[in-house]
């Protein structure tokens, strides 16, 4: 069974990313609640988002985890509801991982002021 361990490993990866994201989702929700009660101009937002290197660490980590977690969820939907063959679903999932990772890191680093050349 060439795929035997793959399925189990992806299942565990999905659960692992979920567990790690639990506090991050709570943190992000808290951030949303705080932000909507604060001044919402570009200048004041950027002042807050660029205020701490820990924000960079937090949101970079969050992006990496969601870039893994979201395509894995889609992979199941592709296989079960769209009935795509597993090779195709796996390939699309991997591409989505790259796309989310790229767009996500770009977005986080744009707002937190990390220099992107």
């Amino acid at each position: 069974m060439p795929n035997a361990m793959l399925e189990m490993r992806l299942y565990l990866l999905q659960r692992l990313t979920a567990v790690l994201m639990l506090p991050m989702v709570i943190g992000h929700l808290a951030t949303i609640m705080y932000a909507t009660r604060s001044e919402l101009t570009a200048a004041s937002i950027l002042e807050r988002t660029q205020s701490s290197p820990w924000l960079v660490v937090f949101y970079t980590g969050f992006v990496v985890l969601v870039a893994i977690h979201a395509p894995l969820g889609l992979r199941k939907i592709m296989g079960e509801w769209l009935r795509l063959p597993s090779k195709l679903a796996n390939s699309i999932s991997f591409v989505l991982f790259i796309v989310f990772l790229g767009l996500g890191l770009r977005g986080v680093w744009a707002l937190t002021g990390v220099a992107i050349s």
Partner: protein
Amino acid sequence: MTGFRFNLSYFAFLLHRLSGLALVCFLPFHFLVLGLGLEGEAALNQMLVFTEQPMVKFGEWVLVVLFSLHLLLGLRVLVIEWAPWPHHGGLRSGWVIIAGGLGLALGWLFLDGVLS
């Protein structure tokens, strides 16, 4: 082939999957909006003006509720799969109701911050 299928646990699965799907469709737009930081404050301010529209605020409310639901229903899955199985209520049906309530509560909390 419906009928027996729609027990609370199945409904929880459906809600969890559909909320995840909605969130993943939103994600690229979210990342692109964040990326506006690269284009300077003017671009960000323009986007902020756009998001003041009631329709956008409603969409944001939906996202906050779905985000909370997805978290809580996911936590339920982790508990079902890894916590010791209790004598009764292994499928944690009560959690589904609590998740729904908490999701709406967090949505209200969001709206409260937005409208004030």
